[in-house]
């Protein structure tokens, strides 16, 4: 396919992805304006109502409006996806870059650390940290950051290992540039493309980890509206009230879809694949 036709397809995917994610971001920002109800208000007289005109997505077992909760939930979930990816990305990039660039002992030590973290059961870490710090978003972020950076570190390290032998890196060294300049100005910008693509699917994994933690009962503090916890709580009513789980579930899917489309487009544009 010609470059232009590819560019066009990339653009379409990118725009669709941005529209989806942007839509959720807008909903999150404008939540107080567009949400028809208070997301934590419990209406004892309207418990477990199927979707209707007054409650387009129905109500849950407390009589809370699910649409409003989804809109407010976008705030938490977007934040989770962004923060849950951002810190691992930054930490992993720096560590991976340093390991790959210096090699030798530094690399060997960091790689063993990475091996340990990879081999370390994620669940033990997650649950312990949540138990130590108490359930809530911050423990979630810390646990994600402690574990998540490993993937990025591996990606970046592999890239740097290849690139540091590239002629332009050797050229930079031969021109008397400091290692910081060589690594951070010349090598890093050329090696982050793969990680940026991976970010997008990672964001989805973060949301799902959050949902799994909610299932185990250690999700965010009630009565916070968060999609994962909504699905987890609603599953008790799965057979009698499908709408309690379906809509937040769909929201996760749509956001995931948006992210993966952005990822696909970025990947195609930068010529890298997951």
């Amino acid at each position, binding site marked *: 396919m010609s470059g232009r036709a590819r560019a066009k397809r990339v653009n379409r995917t990118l725009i669709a992805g941005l529209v989806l994610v942007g839509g959720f971001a807008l909903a999150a920002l404008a939540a107080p304006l567009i949400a028809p109800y208070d997301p934590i208000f419990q209406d004892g007289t309207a418990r477990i109502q199927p979707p209707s005109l007054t409650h387009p997505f129905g109500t849950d077992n407390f009589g809370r409006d699910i649409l409003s909760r989804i809109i407010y939930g976008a705030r938490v979930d977007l934040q989770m996806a962004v923060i849950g990816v951002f810190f691992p990305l930054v930490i992993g990039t720096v560590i991976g870059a340093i390991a790959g660039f210096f090699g030798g002992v530094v690399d060997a030590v960091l790689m063993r650390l990475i091996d*340990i973290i*990879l081999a*370390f059961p994620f669940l033990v870490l997650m649950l312990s940290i949540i138990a*130590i710090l108490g359930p809530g978003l911050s423990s979630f972020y810390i646990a994600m950051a402690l574990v998540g950076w490993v993937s990025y570190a591996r990606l970046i390290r592999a890239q740097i290992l290849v690139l540091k032998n590239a002629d332009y890196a050797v050229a930079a060294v031969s021109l008397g540039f400091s290692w910081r300049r060589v690594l951070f100005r010349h090598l890093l910008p050329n090696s982050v493309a793969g990680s940026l693509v991976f970010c997008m699917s990672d964001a989805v994994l973060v949301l799902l980890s959050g949902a799994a933690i909610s299932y185990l009962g250690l999700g965010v503090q009630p009565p916070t509206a968060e999609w994962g916890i909504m699905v987890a709580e609603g599953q008790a009513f799965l057979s009698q009230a499908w709408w309690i789980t379906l809509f937040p579930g769909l929201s*996760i899917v749509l956001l995931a879809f948006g992210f993966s489309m952005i990822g696909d487009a970025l990947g195609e544009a930068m010529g890298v694949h997951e």
Partner: protein
Amino acid sequence: MHRYSFILMRPLQFVPVVFGVSLITFILVRMIPGDPARVLLGARATPTAIANIRAQFGLDEPLWLQYLYFLRNLANGEMGMSIVYRIDVLRLIGTRIEPTFALILCSVLLSILIAVPLAALAARNQGRSIDHAIRFASTFGIGFPPFWLGLMLMMLLAVKYPIFPVSGYGETLGDKLAHLALPSLTIALSLSTVLLRSLRAAMVDWLKSDVTTAARARGMPESIVFWRHVLPNSIAPSINLLAVNIGWLIGGTVVIESIFALPGMGQLLVRAIFSRDYMVVQGVAMVFACATVLVNFLADIATVAVDPRVKL
């Protein structure tokens, strides 16, 4: 044969990893607030009873001493006693390994069975509607929480149309497979999407590559071009991806295990964490760590076997 010489070296790397995992687990679980003795005794706990239990399990010793004991036990091939079950941790784990292992194995096989043909179909029809459809459907697999998918499958394929059992684990091989069908399918639905995406991407690349052009220029029909040249070249990058994902699975089957009431290690682990059953957490973490290292090791062997250029 020296391409495979890492097989001899690698087991040495087991040691620091397993040691590291044990140390971190040890410190981490003991940092969790909450006292196993109190959990065991519940509401009726009295201080003397608590002290009794703590003494019995050596919890009143200083931390470093407890770790030394742990290491000494480990050297003797023991992992200590479960506080809750009061039996040897290794024995406890022994009864739980099989379901988890079988679950992971089935899920991985099933994912491969789902992912490879679909990826091939999508890649060979790149840009057409069937490609878009497959990619769209695969996003659903990634996006829905497994516990939701699992329950849906259960309601559909076990209650509405009773093809598979709702939950549990069987006794005979066939029985076990029947019980594993739904949980494996649940995992495979999400795992296969990850595989599918990476395989498809690689296949699309290789379909455009010089190697395929060369094969076509030799007059090879498309089927030979695809199965003999594109596929073998495309699987190498997915092996690593699969390994990382199996690594996640090893510690992450708990949700599926508890939904499908599989008596596996994930459930054991979560219960142990909640009840502060230190020795069990420790033991399971070590087994998981070893399994992960082993999987990565196997993945390395597979990579070397698949791609003759790779040296480790």
